Structure formats: C-alpha cells, structure tokens
C-alpha cells in the first residue's frame, strides 16, 4: 500500500488520537502509564503537551510512533497521522512512515544516536535511504542541516562522532535528523532542555518557519512554560497518565481551569526572590502503579473536597474550545475571573 494515497482530502489533521492507553506488562504486574487520552494536532498547528515528570508524555510520544517493545501494550480507538491509520500498518510501512511523514525527536539525545557512526553519515543515511541521494549530495545536505540548527563550523564537524559534541549540540543534531525529510507531523520530546536561550530561540524559530512553510503539525513536549508561552497555539496538560486540561494556550495560561495547571504556573522561579525557597506542589506525583482513587490529583490538591476522593472527574468542556477534568473547574474559573 502506498502510504501517500490515503491523504486524499486536504484538511486531514496532522495527528488524531482517540482513547490511547499504554500499559507496561513486564515485571509481574501491569502498569498503566497512559490512560485513555485524546489528542489532536491540525496541519500547521503548534500544540504543547505539558505535565509533571513521570506523567506519561514520553510514553505517549513513543506509542504514537510505534516505538514500543514486547512488554508494552498500546490500545487506541484511533491513531492517525495525516489521515493514515497507523495501527493498520505493518512494521515495514511504519518504518518508512517514520522519518518520511512523521518523526520524533527523542528526549535522550545521546542514546538516540549511533555512537560508532559519524554525524555526517547518520544524517546522510536518511537522504540516501529515503531520497536516493548520492554520498556526496547526502553529505552536503547534512552540512546544511547542521548549520541550520546552529552547529558552528558544520563542514569541519560533520565527520565527528556523537560523543565529541556537547549536550546541547547533540540535542540539535537530533532535531536536524527529525526535520531532514520534512515530515507532516513532528513530535519533539523536550527538544530544547539542554539549550541556552539564544539557541533555543533559534530552534523555535526554525520549527515555526517549518510549520508556516510546510504546514507541519508540531506536538511539543516540554516542561518549560517559557517555551510554551512563546510558541504554542494550543496546549494539553497531563497528570498521572491522563489529560486534565486542554485548550487555547492564551486562555489556559491566563485562567487555568484545573488546580494542577494553576499550581504549575505558580512554581516558576522568578528573579527577586533569590535564596528563598521556591513554591512547590506538596507531595510527589503518584506512581502509575498506584494512582489514588477519585481524582488522581486529590492528595496534593488544595481545593479537594469529599467527592474528589471517590469520583474521578471526566474531561469535559468548561468553555468554548477548552476542557478540564476537575469537579471544581467552574469555581476556579469564576474565582479567577472576578
């Protein structure tokens, strides 16, 4: 089957996910790390996926890409990239799809690179396999891409091995590889964590222009609220394997409708309070093996009431184009508005 054929209609979403769950089955008991999430990324849209460490963001990304091992079970009602039903694809077709039409910038930069192959060959291989480029063309493309992501003196560094680059450079090399073939859907998992602000701005600009010029859909996984504020059109917030809030970025950041999002916004370090302890969310995130009954956030929530400990709040629309999973969203919204 030609994977391009299915995209007949123009306005198919870059990504459409319905009721996705991921369960780890290794080690005796089952661990549900992702629990029935829905995600949409339109063409040319920049969506941020936020959430506490361990909330399931990377697991979600890998499941969408089909990068899972035998101890991982992925269930979904629907999983489509640019209209292509990913679940219906065989392993080979899926591999061709990756890189060509969808790609993932993995969170762990070093382990995602081949340590015994030069950077030039690793990037060049993409062009040779998918585009049939000659060795020379592939190398030239690799140099060009390295320059694009801000690697200094790219022509001189193209024959270096991964360990010879700094942490931030390796992260950028992964970004270069992910955008090399101009995919329709890009998932970037913490692509700028190791980058200083100047380089970060350069990378975000680069992604922004790819979005504008190619209509690439981008799902950006990050914990950096500065980045989210800078680029996101819409955002989704994950907590303990579920999406607890979602909506237009401006609206959600101005008036969060979920206590977790609100707490997240309050823990940003600011200048002027040097040396003082920073605001934290009390307690620690629940392990996916033992999430509390009712609302998963209830043991740490300053607004929790009795019903929160027994009944799980579903993700429901609280206003136009935005949804929240909290029994007290309405109150929270009104308290903030007034």
């Amino acid at each position, binding site marked *: 089957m030609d994977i391009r054929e299915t995209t007949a209609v123009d306005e198919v979403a870059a990504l459409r996910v319905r009721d996705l769950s991921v369960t*780890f089955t*290794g*080690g005796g008991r089952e661990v549900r790390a992702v629990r029935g999430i829905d995600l949409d990324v339109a063409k040319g849209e920049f969506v941020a996926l*936020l*959430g*506490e*460490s*361990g909330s399931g963001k*990377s697991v979600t990304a890998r499941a969408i890409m089909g990068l899972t091992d035998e101890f991982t079970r992925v269930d979904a009602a629907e999983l489509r990239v640019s209209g292509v039903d990913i679940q219906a694809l065989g392993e080979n077709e899926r591999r061709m799809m990756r890189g060509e039409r969808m790609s993932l910038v993995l*969170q*762990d930069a*070093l*382990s995602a690179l081949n340590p015994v192959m030069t950077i030039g060959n690793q990037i060049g291989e993409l062009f040779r396999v998918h585009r049939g480029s000659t060795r020379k063309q592939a190398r030239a493309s690799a140099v060009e891409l390295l320059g694009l992501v801000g690697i*200094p*003196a790219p022509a*001189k*560094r193209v*024959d*270096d091995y991964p360990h*010879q680059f*700094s*942490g*931030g*450079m390796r992260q*950028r090399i992964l970004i270069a590889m992910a955008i090399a073939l101009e995919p329709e859907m890009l998932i970037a*998992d*913490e692509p700028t*964590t*190791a*980058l*200083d*602000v*100047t*380089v*970060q*701005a350069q990378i975000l*600009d680069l992604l922004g222009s790819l979005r504008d010029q190619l209509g690439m859909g981008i799902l950006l996984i990050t*914990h950096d*609220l*500065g980045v989210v*504020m*800078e680029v996101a059109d819409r955002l989704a917030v994950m907590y303990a394997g579920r999406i607890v809030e979602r909506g237009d*970025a*401006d609206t959600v*950041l101005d008036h969060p409708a979920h206590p977790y999002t609100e707490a*997240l916004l309050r*823990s*940003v*370090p*600011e*200048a002027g309070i040097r*040396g*003082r*302890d*920073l*605001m*934290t969310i009390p307690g*620690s*995130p629940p*392990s996916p093996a033992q999430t509390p009954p009712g609302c998963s956030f209830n043991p740490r929530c300053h607004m929790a009431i009795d019903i929160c400990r027994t009944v799980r709040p579903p993700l429901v629309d609280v206003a136009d184009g935005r949804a929240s999973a909290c029994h007290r969203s309405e109150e929270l919204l009104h308290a903030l508005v007034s």
Partner: protein
Amino acid sequence: MPSSVEPVLDPLFSTPITERKLVLEARDLRRTFTSGSRLNPTRVSAVDGVSLQLHAGETLGIVGESGCGKSTLARMLVGLERPDGGSLTYHGTDVTRARRSDRRLLRTGVQMIFQDPYTSLDPRMSVGDIIAEPMAATRSASPAARRERVAELLGLVGLAPDMMSRYPHQFSGGQRQRIGIARALALDPDVLVCDEAVSALDVSVQAQVINLLGELQRRLGVAIMFIAHDLSVVRHIADNVAVMYLGRIAEQGGTETVYGSPAHPYTQALLSATPSHSRADRGKLARRRILSGEPPSPVNPPTGCRFNPRCWLATDECRTTQPPLREIAVASPTVAADLGLRPVGESRVVACHHAEKALQEAALVG
C-alpha cells in the same frame, strides 16, 4: 537585598564567602580536543585558561552558550577529564595529575550530577544498586544501612522507595535525572558539581530539588558548582556567577552585581535574551538582540578577545590582544553611581578591554 539583614545563626554563613574554607581551586585549566578525520584533524579548544575557587557553603553558577566548555570544565573538576594544562587543588592537595590515592580523595568528596541522565546510569543495574554504588565503592556502611540510605535518598528527590528494584529504562527523563541526583548525594560530598541538574525537570519538581540543594548546603556546608542554561534558576541559587564564552571566563562576580550591571558585552547580550514567563511578552524571544555573526566556534577560535567577531565595541586591540580578567577601574564614587554600580560588596572581574565603556553605554540605554 532583604536577605542580608536577616539574622544568620550558622557561623559558617556569617563569614563572607572568601574567608571561608577554600575547598576546590582551579588554576588556568586548559583542554583541547582533536576531532575530525585522521587525515584532516581539527583542534577544538574547549577550555582555555579557566581559574576559579569554590569555598565551603558557596554556590557558584556557571552560565554560557551551548558548546562553550561548561561540561568539559566540570569533568576536569571532578577528575573525569585530564587537563592539558593548569592545576587543580582539593583541600590544599594538588590533584591535577592525581595518583590513585588522591583520586580516591576526589571520588568521595567531589560528586557530579551529569547533564545526560540516560547514559550516566548503567542500564544493567537496578536503581537501588546505582544509588548505593558510591557507598559500595568506598565501602562505607553495611549493605542494610545502604538500603536504608537509598530509600531515604529516593524520598528526598521525590521518588517512591519501592522504585529501588526497577531499572533505568523504566523511568521517565526527569525521574532518571533525580536518580543521578540521589546517587551524587549518597556520600554527603563537600563539593557537588551539578551539570544541568534540573533541566529535565518540570518547574514543581525543579523547585523541590533546588530547595533540597539549598537545605543540604545550609546543613552540611556543601560547595556547589551549578551549571545551567536557565539564567533565572542560576540567579535564584548562586552566590557568585561565572559567565563563560568559548572556553574562557568573560565575567565573574557576585550574582546580583553581574545580573544587575553586567559589564562584559557578552554578558549584556546573554541577559537581554532572558525569556520572560509572561504571555504578554510573547514573541520577545525573537525580537531581542540576537548576536550577529557566525555562531562561535572553538575550532580555530578568533585571536585576541574570542568575542570580537560578534562584539559591537570591538576595536583593533580586541582583535590582537587577549583581555585579561581584571577589576573595573572606577575613578570615583560618583562615577560608580553613574554607572549603576553598587558601592559595597562590589567584587567582580571582567575580561574586556572596554568594560567601562560597555557599562556606561548600558547605563545610558537602561
């Protein structure tokens, strides 16, 4: 600054940092790598003449662009990378070309939290064994006591003690970073080198770890070197800060002085790039001063001041003569006030031929 008037009871913290015990001192450290193909080798000057001192209970922040040599410097400080030149002294003992016994000294007293939480954890070891490893290597504590300590450490970094028997690949990025932190804290080190130690953590967990480091420092007087690209985090926790540019220190001094009135053109550019956490300033990241010129390259770095190809104040002198780190010459207190300098506690050095001019221009613009 309100914190200076608060009563400080701990005797360690009532002494100015420079009068406290000197724990680690680096003098003129250098490291050059050879890379590229064998026929056409390239020399990468990663660290070029860095000197710094770490005192008990001090937090020194290191900031600078990606690739400027921060991790290389850190690895030399903990004895993982051998300097090509310069010297390293730990508690008065020269450990530069450390023999076995000295290296053991470094290994127990100096710990590092690595930038890459994935590759720094052995995939075949359980998390409990990974965290207990420094204790096992130095044969401190019985196996039972070690287990207890591991559980305690996991709790401190916000992980459940029952995660001890799991393996690194079963953890998320931020969880792995915290495993690395727990391991570094296992032996109560007196120097802790944190290389982007909180960058993979969301703000809440990040705050928790930063608070933990602060508490540890108050309790044990640990000296911390904190490398981070997040300028607001560094401002929050560092007493002193060193700004690196292409392998050299451009400016170093008290955190409030450097952030409040940066005197090196590069520091000024770096600080102007700080993103704001307010949605209203959206797009500012793209609009602010983006340094012109090629990205800096440690392959064939420029002669003279390494910042000169991108500097708006560069003169001929800058292209030929390397500016030494020096104090700023300020003629009188009135001039100092004009320049926006704080009169007391002013301690800062700058490697720029025209630092006074840079400071004056910044004062005019700001």
